């Protein structure tokens, strides 16, 4: 008897419970799954499976555990940190077929949904009850809730309403050995360790999310968006600090610089002033009286900071249009550059002007243009480095420059990721952010759930050896980071 290839053997096992159309074997079919939203990182998966129910997920995982085949879970594939980047010797587990909303409970203000449900689809489905799901990543039209949980996704409205972790109450999880369990509950607190928070943002390293119960909020009585245009980026940055400092909590406070304004305007026709150096979008929501007062206060602050123009959205349609441009700003970059590389650092708000000028210097040094789009209110930056992957060497220069931007964020007291996750993209910068002891503890957490290390290995938390290798290239003050580790 000849030994079948690992791929054929796996496919054979899966055929016992999955139709042929749900097991992608040929290279032509697997190729489109080789990357997620970060398309410069690509790896052809060994096999792609598309189960439709939890039982099938359990069986896939059991077989993979038995054969020691690593597994990467994938939702809508819109992630920007390579979190769903496949492994050449691993199975890519697509949860895109899990796209049903199972139950809406308007009284308890929760919805039970499958992981492949699109973020925006939740708000659309519960709109008739006057409710919505608050976290709104800019990709909310396409990204799925399972991925949102795995990356602890943020979004425009997180400034006031929190990240994904603050807006879910329960998760259904399947472990690598196929066991299904539930964390959290439908009440506000559950006894024992808060495993819900641990699972949220665990980037597919601890378990596969198969069900999510999200918290819903009532749609605010009134919402109003102000658009302020500035002739210089620095005062726009100052205005952000002034608004927050005045004790106002906007529902969203976003900033875009000129290249971003122009690209977004070309798509959305939102009426952005295309000659402005920067715009701020500030949403205020709540009761009518509260919003009216806040609009006046913010308007005054913006004028004091030197805004040359402040506009208020005329109606709900224009408000939606203002946000449409902002939310499409990343992909709209395709209009001005063949590729972009999105950073996701956070910084203390008051360091914004300084970091912006640091980014500008880096952009000049590397000869790569940068467009800035960010959640200014919570200090979460998204500098987009514009490059052309078809030009030899340009991707490497881009990555290097991106690394420098993140190190700058850490240096001013911030962090390397605000909401996109570490994934593959920022794995080296994790070594700057955390010490060996901290990373060791993170590995211990992973081992508690997945001792064989088969779930999304190599992402999110770097091995100490990787840090040693990476560190070897960055000698600070004549000291090698992690000197105790053997180099390869």
């Amino acid at each position, binding site marked *: 008897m000849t030994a079948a290839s690992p791929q054929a053997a796996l496919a054979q096992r899966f055929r016992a419970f999955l139709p042929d159309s749900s097991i992608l074997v040929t290279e032509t079919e697997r190729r489109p799954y080789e*990357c997620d939203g970060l398309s410069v990182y690509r790896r052809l998966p060994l096999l792609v499976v598309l189960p439709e129910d939890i039982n099938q997920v359990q069986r896939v995982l059991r077989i993979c555990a038995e054969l020691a085949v690593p597994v990467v879970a994938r939702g809508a594939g819109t992630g920007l940190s390579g979190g769903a980047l496949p492994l050449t010797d691993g199975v890519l587990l697509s949860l895109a*077929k899990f796209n049903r909303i199972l139950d809406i409970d308007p009284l308890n203000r929760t919805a039970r949904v499958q992981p492949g449900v699109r973020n925006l689809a939740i708000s659309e489905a519960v709109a008739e009850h006057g409710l919505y799901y608050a976290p709104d990543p800019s990709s909310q039209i396409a990204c799925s809730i399972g991925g949102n949980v795995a990356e602890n996704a943020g979004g425009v409205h997180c400034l006031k309403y929190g990240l994904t972790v603050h807006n879910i109450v329960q998760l259904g999880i399947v472990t690598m050995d196929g066991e299904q369990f539930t964390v959290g509950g439908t009440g506000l607190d559950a006894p024992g360790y808060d495993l819900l928070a641990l699972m949220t943002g665990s980037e597919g390293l601890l378990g596969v999310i198969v069900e999510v119960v999200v918290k819903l909020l009532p749609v605010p009585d009134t919402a109003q968006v102000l658009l302020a245009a500035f002739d210089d980026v620095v005062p726009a940055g100052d205005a952000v600090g002034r608004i927050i400092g005045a004790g106002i909590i906007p529902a969203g406070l976003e900033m875009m610089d000129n290249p971003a304004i122009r690209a977004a305007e070309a798509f959305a026709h939102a009426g952005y002033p295309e000659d402005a150096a920067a715009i701020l979008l500030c949403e205020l929501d709540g009761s009518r009286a509260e919003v009216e007062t806040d609009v006046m206060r913010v308007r005054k602050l913006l004028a004091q900071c030197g805004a040359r123009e402040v506009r208020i959205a005329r109606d709900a349609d224009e408000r939606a249009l203002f946000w449409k441009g902002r939310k499409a700003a990343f992909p709209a970059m395709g209009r001005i550059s063949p590729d972009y590389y999105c950073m996701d650092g956070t910084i203390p708000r008051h360091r914004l002007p300084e970091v912006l000028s640091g980014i500008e210097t880096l952009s000049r040094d590397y000869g790569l243009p940068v467009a800035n789009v960010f959640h200014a209110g919570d200090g979460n930056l998204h500098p987009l480095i514009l490059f052309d*992957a078809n030009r030899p060497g340009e991707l490497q220069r881009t990555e290097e420059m991106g690394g420098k931007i993140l190190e700058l964020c850490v240096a001013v007291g911030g962090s390397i990721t605000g909401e996109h996750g570490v994934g593959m993209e920022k794995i080296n910068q994790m070594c700057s952010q955390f010490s060996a002891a901290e990373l060791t503890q993170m590995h211990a957490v992973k081992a508690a759930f997945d001792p064989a290390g088969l779930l999304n290995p190599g992402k999110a938390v770097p091995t100490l050896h990787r840090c040693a290798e990476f560190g070897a290239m960055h000698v600070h003050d004549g000291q090698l980071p992690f000197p105790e580790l053997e180099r390869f």
Partner: protein
Amino acid sequence: MQTQLPESLLDSPQGREADAILRRCVHCGFCNATCPTYQLLGEELDGPRGRIYLIKQLLEGEGDADTVRTHLDRCLTCRSCETTCPSGVKYSRLLDIGREQAERQGTRPWQQRVMRWGLRQLLPFPRRFALLLGLARVLRPLLPQSWATALPAVNKASVAGANIAVRHPRRVILLDGCVQSVAAPEINCAAARVLDHLGISVQRVTDGGCCGAVEQHLSAPQVAAQRMRRNIDAWWPLTEAGAEAIVSTASACGLQVKDYGHLLRDDPLYADKAQRISAQVKDIAELVADSPAPSSAGPRPRVAFHSPCTLQHGQRLGGVVEQILRDWGFELTPVADGHLCCGSAGAYSLLQPVLSDRLRADKLVALRRGSPQVIASANIGCLMHLRQGAESSLPVRHWVELLADCLPNK
């Protein structure tokens, strides 16, 4: 997105166009969110982003053409993705190139080839289509249920208003089309009456024919080009003589003619003429929207409007018909997911019946939800497809017929 098309391909205009389109795509996946087939199947290969990737593979000299073609076949060409795409990827252009390549490099099973050939021999030819339709009506009791219900009803009022005299200084050419002229001639009669009422006379062209969309989308672009040239020759004297526009009541045909300029751009004899013809094409909604609505408001039925993909995504005229209907005093019921295709999509309903039926079922649920008295649309394909699925108590009509009903002296 990074591309590695071979130099040989980049030397051709087609290769360069494909490369430019591919490089605009940033792989964000927004398109999948509004793609009808991705929403049904949850499979990357059946959404625009995956199809773009498949086409890229094929153009880069990798990938199995038959596999690629299978997934490209499932695309409705509804272009909802183009409306959604923030980076402005011209997906349908790339799809045309991809389909042509897949067709050339792969081998389509003979049953499919026969079916597609048959449709190309039938649909664009009004007389053949009429003959077959007549025959089918006679044989209706013997036909399978699904075929029998698909047959358009015989229309008695069809010729009312067909020959209104050309009496206004404003004149337009009204396209008869192929399928519509046989299956629903009443639509253009209604259009002629509405336009006449608005002070615009209608001229018909007898020696034109199908706009070429059928062949264009059934992988026979050369035949389509012949038709386009013939139509241009037929319309040219009238536009030269002062017809202000070429008007279509079928949004798919209108879209195709609006594309003539692009499709014939490399034709040395016709490129300029095609440009000018394309610039003169209007969907009837564009004409009616420019004219004031009549003030007399009688009772009007409650309407659920289905905007055809060729109207809202292809011609980018979303919302125009809806506004006209409101201006004319109709109440519109809310329709969820209005951006999604009804599953008709030209010959798609015949070539991909399973997906097409699922899309229609979903669409009808959405349309019925606001309890309308009539469903209206703007393209013959959608009208026939929806009619086939809707119960007989809920009529499915062209919106211009609803307007004609409001006119005096019916």
